[in-house]
């Protein structure tokens, strides 16, 4: 029996699932890990759902839980990961490694460089790519707005040096 809460939650996740995929894209390597992290984020969202009051947007709330799971809660396991399958098995999750050859070489290098960054940098980059303001970034990470800007500038510099050694 599915409860109303469950139906409500699943509908929201189905609508916003790309957000989870995007986090997985940054924090995992390969399809199996992507799926495993996707599963863990969904479980953590479900566990936190009773406390979701609806005073913030569902997607904003998802960012927090998703990033926290990827950075602090998720434990990369060696267990057999394929606990669920996508409908279309031939559909490959886009990873840096599987990037289409026709894609710009520069983009390929940027994605590859970012994959090497530490977990906190990745979170800042992710939120920046998602068009979040420095205020939102600082709140989600738990640092001051000034430090969020400092961090971003350092990331930009680091990226530049890595790409143009």
């Amino acid at each position, binding site marked *: 029996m599915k409860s109303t809460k469950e139906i409500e939650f699943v509908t929201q996740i189905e609508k916003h*699932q790309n957000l989870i995929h995007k986090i997985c894209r940054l924090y995992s390597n390969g399809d199996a890990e992507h799926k495993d992290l996707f599963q*863990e984020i969904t479980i953590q969202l479900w566990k936190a759902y009773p406390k979701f009051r609806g005073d913030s947007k569902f997607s904003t709330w998802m960012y927090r839980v998703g990033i926290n799971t990827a950075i602090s809660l998720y434990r990369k396991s060696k267990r057999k990961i394929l606990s669920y399958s996508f409908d279309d098995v031939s559909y490959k*999750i886009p990873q840096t490694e599987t990037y289409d050859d026709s894609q710009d070489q520069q983009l390929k290098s940027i994605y590859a460089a970012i994959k090497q960054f530490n977990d906190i940098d990745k979170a800042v980059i992710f939120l920046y*790519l998602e068009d979040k303001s420095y205020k939102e970034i600082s709140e989600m990470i*738990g640092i001051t707005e000034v430090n969020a800007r400092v961090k971003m500038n350092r990331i930009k510099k680091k990226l530049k040096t890595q790409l143009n050694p």
Partner: protein
Amino acid sequence: MDELEILKKDWQKNQKFPKLSKKEIYRLLHKKSSSIVKWIFILSIIEFCFWTLISLLMKDSEAQQRFDSYDIDYIIMPLMISGYIILAYFFVAFYKNYKKISSTDSVKLLMKNILNTRKTVKHYVLFNLIFLYISIIVGIIIEVSNSVDLKLITAKFTDTADYFILYGIVAILTLLMMVLLTGILLGFYYLVYGLLLKRLKKNYKVLQELEQ
């Protein structure tokens, strides 16, 4: 245009992922989580049980029964009562820390709360080790001054220097035992928690350095 701007443009338009159906998402909700917090919680409960069990086992041991015959309640009772009070304190502190962990907090606060939970259990283990060492030392002193068998052995020594040899051997053996026990425990904790929390600690350090 800098690299991140190029990336941002691509990021916002180029996101093709397989779409999960409602049925598939529903199935995910009922999978088991493998989160770090769950593991820390399980390990902490095991630790609490392990150390409580050890102290209970010691209570019923032959040595303890012999101690009871020495009429030294004034030493044993305060040690036992303080032991239980401290156990209760650690358990409440651990539970409170655990309840504070929330995946909707900021990245930094969540990390801090997870590490605090671990810290409480670490302090509990440390307290137990110290408590165990104090008990060993107190036990040896009581044994040496009360045991009839030991008095018989020491009665055979005529020279004072012989006493020092006996006490020296006892002290060295005790010390070796403590070092060995500490080594084994530290090694065990390093393996279990070191590996489990390595990533978290590294990330927390990054955030702390930024605030300096």
